C-alpha cells in the first residue's frame, strides 16, 4: 500500500468515528432527559430499588456520553480542528474541585489524595474545561491503576519562570519500559491497564497530550525510584503566542 492509500484509509476511519459519535449525541440527550425526569420523581414516587436502578442507568449514560465526547475530540485533533479557548485560570481552584469530585471514589478505592496546595493562587493561561480534563485524566489514572493495598496520590502545582508545572505522583502499578514509548498514543493500552480497567478507551492521555501541547506546554512522566509514576505537565502562566501567529494581523474571525 502506498502512502496515499494509507492516508485515505486513515481519513475515512476518523470520518466514521466522527459520524457515529455525532449520531449518538441526540439519543444520549434523550435518554439522559427521560432518566432525569423519572429520577426527579415528578411523575410519581419511586421505591428505593427503582431509584437505584435509574441512577445506575444515568451513570452509564454518562459513561457513553464521555466516550462519545472523547471520540469527537480525537477526530477533531486529527483534522487539526481542535480549538481551545484560553483565558487566565486559577489552577489551584480547578485542582481542588477535581479532587473533591473524586473524593468518594478515592475513599472507596483506599486511595489517599494529597494536594500540596500552594499558599497563593496559581494562574495559568489555558482553556478551563480542557485543562480540567487533563487534570481529571491524570488523577483518575492514578486511582484506577493503583497497586493492591492502600495508595497515595500527590498533586503539586508550582510556578517555574513563565510556566506552571503540574505534577501527579502515585505509588501505583507503574509503566513498563516497553509501554513508556507508546503511552500517549491513540487507543494504546498496556496489558496491565487492560487487566485493571478493561473498559478504558486508551484516549485519555492522547487527548491530554494534544490539549497540553496546543496550550503551549509539554506533558511527560517519570518512573519513580521506589514505586509508581509521576506525570508532569507545563502550561504557560500568561498569554502564549505562537511564533507563526505573531506575524499575522489582529485576528478577527467574525467575517
Amino acid at each position, binding site marked *: 500500500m502506498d502512502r496515499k492509500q494509507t492516508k485515505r484509509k486513515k481519513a475515512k476511519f476518523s470520518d466514521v468515528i466522527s459520524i457515529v459519535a455525532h449520531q449518538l*449525541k441526540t439519543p444520549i*440527550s434523550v435518554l439522559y432527559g427521560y432518566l432525569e425526569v423519572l429520577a426527579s420523581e415528578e411523575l410519581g414516587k419511586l421505591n428505593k430499588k427503582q431509584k437505584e436502578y435509574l441512577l445506575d442507568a444515568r451513570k452509564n449514560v454518562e459513561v457513553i456520553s464521555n466516550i*462519545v465526547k472523547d471520540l469527537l475530540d480525537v477526530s477533531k485533533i486529527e483534522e487539526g480542528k481542535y480549538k481551545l479557548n484560553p483565558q487566565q485560570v486559577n489552577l489551584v481552584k480547578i485542582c481542588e474541585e477535581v479532587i473533591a469530585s473524586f473524593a468518594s471514589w478515592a475513599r472507596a478505592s483506599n486511595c489517599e489524595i494529597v494536594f500540596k496546595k500552594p499558599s497563593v493562587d496559581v494562574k495559568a493561561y489555558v482553556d478551563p474545561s480542557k485543562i480540567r480534563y487533563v487534570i481529571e485524566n491524570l488523577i483518575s489514572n492514578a486511582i484506577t491503576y493503583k497497586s493492591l493495598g492502600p495508595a497515595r496520590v500527590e498533586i503539586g502545582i508550582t510556578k517555574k519562570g513563565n510556566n506552571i508545572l503540574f505534577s501527579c505522583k502515585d505509588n501505583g502499578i507503574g509503566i513498563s519500559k516497553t509501554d513508556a514509548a507508546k503511552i500517549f498514543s491513540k487507543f494504546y493500552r498496556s496489558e496491565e491497564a487492560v487487566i485493571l480497567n478493561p473498559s478504558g478507551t486508551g484516549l485519555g492521555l492522547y487527548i491530554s497530550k494534544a490539549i497540553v501541547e496546543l496550550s503551549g506546554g509539554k506533558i511527560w512522566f517519570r518512573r519513580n525510584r521506589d514505586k509508581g509514576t509521576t506525570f508532569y505537565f507545563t502550561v504557560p502562566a500568561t498569554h502564549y503566542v505562537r511564533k507563526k501567529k505573531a506575524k499575522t494581523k489582529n485576528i478577527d474571525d467574525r467575517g
Partner: protein
Amino acid sequence: MSEKRKRRPKILMIEDNIFLRKLYRDKLTRAGFDFIEATNGIEGLNKAFSENPDLVILDLILPRKNGFDVLDEIRKNKKTKNIPVIILSNLGQEMDIKEGLARGAQEYLVKTDIRLSDAVEKVKKWLKK
C-alpha cells in the same frame, strides 16, 4: 376576583427529534406553559409568525431550513424580532456558539451538556425579562 387571569406563556419548540419534543412538551406543560411544536425549519418559521409564541427553542440541524436561517428570519420580521430565542443544539464548538449568539439568540445550550431542569430555568429566566 376582578384581576384578569394571566395568559400562560407560549413556547414554540422547533426540533426534529420526536423524543426530545415529547420530553420538553411534557416538562414545560407541567411547569405551566403552553407548548407548540414544529418538526422542521419551514414549519417552525410559519408557526413563529402565526402563533405569537413568547419564546422559541430552536434546534440548528433541521430539515428543510437550518436553524441559523430560521433565526435570521425571526430577527428580520417585525412581529418576531424581539422574541427570545434559545438555541438547543448538538453543535458545541466555540465557533457555532459565537455564530448563534451573533445572529441574535439569547442563549445557546448544548444538548449533551445541559440538564433538562436547567434548560427549563433558562426558559423561565427569559420569560421574566
